[in-house]
């Protein structure tokens, strides 16, 4: 098992190297003078020159890359022009907000999509099946920011069920004491159920938006995978042995069908991490996505670079975890390693 994990880790290293190189190139690929970008639109030629020297932008590219890597290793991602704070600190502070939102969205998505897919597969060509297909195609066509806005309009403006899309908590509440950074967990740990409900209310619409967005690939994959597994030889044997419907569909069919779905999760995360940025803008969510977007609008470049790097590293790690999870579940992979 350990060798499986180590092998997968080794395979992730070239990706990480590639990510670091690409993010480095992105900053140096800036048209015109990169120093001017980092100095900001209001900088004088004097200030730009200072920035150039300070950031080592006058040195040869290889040397710059060396400095870049050294900085990364020390956790130095530069400083934001607009806030004056180190980018790494800001990202660290804002990461839990994004993570809580994305994970909750994924959870809701799985809870809806997987049973939908199973149902559609056990009743092929029924109304459920066709509805599942239509929902899937629609989900893929809707721009995620549009879904968010529609949800806000319906649930906040028209129905008044959801609170205003103004961030993680209503103004009347203060953040729970910071343990994990996840408001849902921290509020429970602090024994404040009303705070928990307040946080949940604010999370509801943005998480639902993300969930609708990622429903489609998960439902479609679950359905296809279940259909394939339900007509397999070993399910036939299970039926011939008179096992109960629950055992056949869940213990035998579903566990096998989930394997390709887990592999799909990698792609789903790619969409989700991108959609996160858009959803954070719609709901004024104080995560790393909105941090990057605000910096972009102010032509503040270091946060954007730090954001892209962080997202990419997270994505590589997530894919690694999915690979390892798959290996744990499928004995054919586990025992081969």
């Amino acid at each position, binding site marked *: 098992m350990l060798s499986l994990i180590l092998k997968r880790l080794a395979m992730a290293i070239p990706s990480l190297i590639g990510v670091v190189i690409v993010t480095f190139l992105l900053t140096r690929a800036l048209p015109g003078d990169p120093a001017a970008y980092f100095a900001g639109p209001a900088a004088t030629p004097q200030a730009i020159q200072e920035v150039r020297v300070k950031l080592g932008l006058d040195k040869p590219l290889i040397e710059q890359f060396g400095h870049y890597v050294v900085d990364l290793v020390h956790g130095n991602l530069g400083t934001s022009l607009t806030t004056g704070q180190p980018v790494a600190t800001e990202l660290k502070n804002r990461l839990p907000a994004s993570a809580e939102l994305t994970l909750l969205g994924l959870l809701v998505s799985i809870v809806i999509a997987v049973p939908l897919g199973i149902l559609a597969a056990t009743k092929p060509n029924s109304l459920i099946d066709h509805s599942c297909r239509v929902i899937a195609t629609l989900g893929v066509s809707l721009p995620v920011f549009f879904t968010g806005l529609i949800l806000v309009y319906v649930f906040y403006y028209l129905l008044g069920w959801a609170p205003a899309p103004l961030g993680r908590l209503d103004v009347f509440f203060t953040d729970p004491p910071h343990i994990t950074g996840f408001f849902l967990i921290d509020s429970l740990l602090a024994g404040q159920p009303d705070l928990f409900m307040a946080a949940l209310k604010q999370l509801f619409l943005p998480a639902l938006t993300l969930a609708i967005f990622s429903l489609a690939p998960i439902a479609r994959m679950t359905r296809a995978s279940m259909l394939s597994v339900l007509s397999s030889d*070993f399910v*036939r044997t*299970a039926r*011939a042995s008179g*096992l109960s419907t629950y*055992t056949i569909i869940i213990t035998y069919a579903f566990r096998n069908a989930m394997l390709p779905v887990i592999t799909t999760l990698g792609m789903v995360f790619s969409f989700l991490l991108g959609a996160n940025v858009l959803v954070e803008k719609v709901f004024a969510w104080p995560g790393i996505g909105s941090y990057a977007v605000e910096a972009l609008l102010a032509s503040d470049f270091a946060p954007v670079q730090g954001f892209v790097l962080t997202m990419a590293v997270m994505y590589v790690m997530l894919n690694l975890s999915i690979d390892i999870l798959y290996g744990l579940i499928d*004995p*054919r992979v586990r*025992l081969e390693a």
Partner: protein
Amino acid sequence: MTPVPALSVEGLSVEFRTRSGIVRALDNVSFAVAKGETIALVGESGSGKSVTAYAVMGILDPAGRVSAGRAMLGDLDLLSASPKALADVRGRKIAMIFQNPRTALNPIRTVGKQIADVLIRHGNISRHAAPAQAVEMLRAVGITDPSRRAKAYPFEMSGGMCQRVMIAIALAAKPSLLIADEPTTGLDVTTQAVIMDLVNDLAKELGMATIFITHDLALAGQRSARIVVMHAGHVVENAPTRELFENPRHPYTAELIAATPDAAQSLDELAAVPGMLPDLRRTDLPPCRYSERCPRKLAACAQPLPQPIPGTTHFVACWNPLPEHALSAPKVSAA
């Protein structure tokens, strides 16, 4: 008064809906298996022998439909039973093993657990006692070091071992009837013999009836007391084994026997069965589906086939059967 058979299939007809039409896969198939008896269902590919088994077990493809007939397992008609009644009976009273044993087992579940699943479902045994009993089943089917093997996965085992596991699963609840669908296809000859011996021995021990489905007439001849020959969805002949080989009455059976390789024959002497299976989607199929390729066809062959007469041991569905041998004088049913 003839004893109640373990399974009695009566007038079974099955059709499949396909894009190119309705395939009349089985037409009026009738035969019976006595308690503890081993019979073989023999025929070329497409003869409907597997379809018969699937229909009886109730695991037909969704495109398939039983259009007529009964399959009496004791008092219960399997073809009209409720899904709940069927799930109770499958595995417990009637079981089936399949070809390609490796793909027929759950790839991500240990073989011990798969046997235990059946035991817990049918065997009136607790979840705690089941794993140990599963190990005993593995021992009974001849797997060495069964307690270690029980924790193995199918992909770690050879084809022969997987087939043994399938037999263990099928026999876990001690059914009174086992259907074995080409269980030795894909196994090497030595393993084939060993597996067939195992099935025969266990059947004798449990007093279990067996239906052995195969395209290999020689194998059927070695292992079963009675042979039911099928062609294009019909039962064409049904006789005790010795009787069938010494005194085949249906022209198709005779061709099959001639086409079956025998160690004593040279390959040059092998004959192919002339003609082809008729297209079962046709709406104008003649009552005898062999008639179009039959050298003994008469005008009388246009009428519906003869039905089996209860009490006779040798049935042939033919209006112009081969003459009996002078030496033996068994009872024959034909109009």
